[in-house]
Each structure stands twice: as C-alpha cells, then as structure tokens.
C-alpha cells in the first residue's frame, strides 16, 4: 500500500462525512490525479467481501462504511435498533423532494393529493430532507440532505434513477383514459 493510500485511508477513517477528492488532495498535499490513483488502490483492498470495512462513493465524496454482513453484530454492540423502513407516505414525499428539489410543502401536497405534514416532519426528523429557505409566499422549501445521499448510497443526485423510467407507458395512459370515458358511455346506453 502506498503512503498516499495509507494517508487517504486515515483521513476517511477520521472524517465524520464523505470527503471529496479535492479536499483529500489539499490535506494530503498531493494532486487530485494522485489521490484518484490512491483511491483506486484502496477500492481494491476495501472491495465488498474483503475486509470488515468497505470504500463507498457517496454524497459527493468518499467514505468508509462497515460491511453489511456485520450489521446485526454491530447493532447488538452499539445497542442501536434498526431504523424502521420508509412508510409509503414518507417514500412518496421523499421521491417528490428528491426529483423536484427545491420544492415547497404545498407542491408536495398538490402532487400527493393529501396534506403531507407528518411525512415531511418525519423525513426532516430523520435528517433525510432539510429546509432550505422560504418561497416568496413564505412556504418552507425543502431539499434532500447530504445524509440522504449517504444512506441511499448515492454519489450524487445525478445517480438517482432516470425519472423518465417512471413515465407511464402510452398503453397505461390510453388504458386509463379509456376507462374513465368508457364508464360514461355505459350510461348513454338505455
């Protein structure tokens, strides 16, 4: 292992947040290219299944995480219960914030068709979304947090699945339209 790889591993071990290549280069007094090479070496050593720690590219930088295989043992040791999965309302609200950010609460409500106060509050409490100012009408504006990217294993928001894959197929759309209209025609029949 090169000296620079060792330094980078040290820094990632100590840093409470993922660190960008740029910051790593500044701290290690190396070029970004050199840091990228060092990370490549680390990536091999810390590939999934090799050690108890894995290298992850998340939240706009690099970070170390424990191997998922030891999750249960870790929760026993740290007395940290598993966080509950996202509820349907939370997942929908999070999807809207993730794709439309920055987005206001009324807009979330408009899309979901129901007020989403409690989903917004619990996502904020979990640290997955955060307020980032107010709209001109005073509504709170939300965006996803750095923690969101970390917990979802995303190196950046551009790693979210392409939204076009959620476009309804023309068949679905036609089907829905026809069903709405067909019901009306039934009435026209005697």
């Amino acid at each position, binding site marked *: 292992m090169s000296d620079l790889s060792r330094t980078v591993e040290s820094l990632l071990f100590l840093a409470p947040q993922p660190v960008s290549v740029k910051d790593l280069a500044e701290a290690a007094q190396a070029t970004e290219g050199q840091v990228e090479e060092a990370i490549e070496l680390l990536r091999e050593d810390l590939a999934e299944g090799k050690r108890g720690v894995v290298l992850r590219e998340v939240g706009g930088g690099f970070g170390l995480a424990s191997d998922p295989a030891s999750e249960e043992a870790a929760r026993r040791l740290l007395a940290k219960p598993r966080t509950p999965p*996202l509820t349907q309302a939370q997942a929908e609200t999070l999807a809207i914030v993730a794709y439309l950010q920055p987005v206001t609460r009324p807009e979330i409500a408009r899309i979901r*068709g129901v007020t989403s106060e409690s989903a917004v509050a619990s996502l904020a409490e979990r640290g997955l979304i955060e307020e980032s100012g107010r709209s001109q009408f005073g509504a709170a504006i939300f965006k996803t947090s750095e923690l969101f990217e970390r917990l979802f294993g995303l190196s950046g928001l551009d790693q979210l699945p392409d939204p076009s894959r959620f476009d309804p197929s023309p068949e679905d*759309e036609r089907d*829905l339209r026809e069903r709405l*209209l067909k019901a009306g025609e039934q009435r026209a029949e005697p």
Partner: protein
Amino acid sequence: MAVADLDLDLDLDVFAGPFDLLMAVVLREEISLLDLQLGEVVVAYVEHLEREGELELEVATEFLVLIAALLELKSRLMLPSPEEELDELKPEEAVEELLARMLEYRRYRDAAKVLADRFESQRGYLYRSAPLPPELRRVAVEAATAVYDPDALGAALGDLLTEPPDVDISHIRPTVSLERRLRALRDVLRSRSSFDFDEEFGNEDRLTQAVTVFGLLELYRKGEITWEQDRAFGPIRVKKAIPDAIHKQG
C-alpha cells in the same frame, strides 16, 4: 388496479350509481361539479371502507388524488378569477386534467417504490460516528471564531416556550375524535329533546364542528335523531327521535 375499478356504490342527492360512473358523468358534464357534494362522496367511500374492512392502499391513494383534483376543479369553478370568464371546462379538458394529475402522482408513487427498496438495500452499511482524537479536537477549538449569533438560540427557546394555539395543531394532527363528539351530542340530548346546532356548537373550532356534523350523520343513521334545516347554510335544528323509532341503540 385503478380507481376506475373501485367497487363503490353511491347514493347521493344528485346521483345514484357506481363511483366510476359518477366520474364519467362529471367529466361529460352531465352533472355539474357545482351540484356535487364531494364530502358525500368521501363519506360514502369511508363507509365503503368500513364495510369492506380492508384498505386497498393503492386504490385509496388514487381515490384521494382524484377527489383532490375534483376539489381543485370545483374551487376553480366557484371562484373564477376576475379577468377570466367562468371557465367552461369541456369534458375532454377535464379528462386531460384529471389524467395529468393521476399520471403525475403515479410517477412519484413508482419512484417512491424504487427509493424505498434502495433504502432497504443500503441500510446494512453503517458509518462511523466518533469524536475526533483529542489532539485534533484541541486544534479545532483553537481555530474557532464566532460565526453563530446567540440570539438565534434565544429565538429558538422562545419558540419552544410558546404554547401552541389549539387550532393550529388541530389541522396538523386531528385531535377531535368522532367518539367524543358522539358523546357530546348525546349529553346534550339527555337534558333536552331538541337544540340548535349553532347555539350549541357554534363556538367550537371548524374541525370540531365538522366532526360533530359527522356525529349527527351517525346518530341519524342509528335512528337516534332527526334534524331540520329550512335552507342551505340556515340554522340546523336537531331533534331527539321518538323513542319507539329507535331500533338500534349505539
């Protein structure tokens, strides 16, 4: 599964028949949205859920999106903007509007599924959360300069000291239970055989009043009361039903 498949029969003032038919006739303007009490549709839906005893989540959310879209269209009809003529919403336009809303919602519903799965698959990775070693912490303190305003803490404490006004939380987390409103109604009826709704409950907040009206519907259904209202928005006179008409005491 879509809302159009929802097996919900309606018996409303202006319409009797299945829900999907109602949607269609509204879209075709055979019934004006202005005449349709959307609240009744919701009540019918809730009763339908009670009967079925199970909540088909997907249908329920689509139903809500649909009702919300109808409410928005209706409020647009009721409150035309000054420069705009009362908008004649053509059936095709209404279909397109509703479709657009439903499709938009579906898109995020599907994205939500992907995100929830991803959250699940990533939960095994745990990150370290430990204080910096002492030698680094010391330097951090020495390098620190004032960047935060202590008044922000004072303001936050002030917010926390403020006891929330009742109305405010009521729309965030409804605190009015139908059961308690039923009890309140029966309490009034124990001492009197009839009362005026506004005199009795006019001072309650809007949510409490609304739930009390639901309570009236429930008591009416059980045959415990009848009521009179001469004109729309006029006073409501609630009367205890004559005892032998009570066939089922709740």
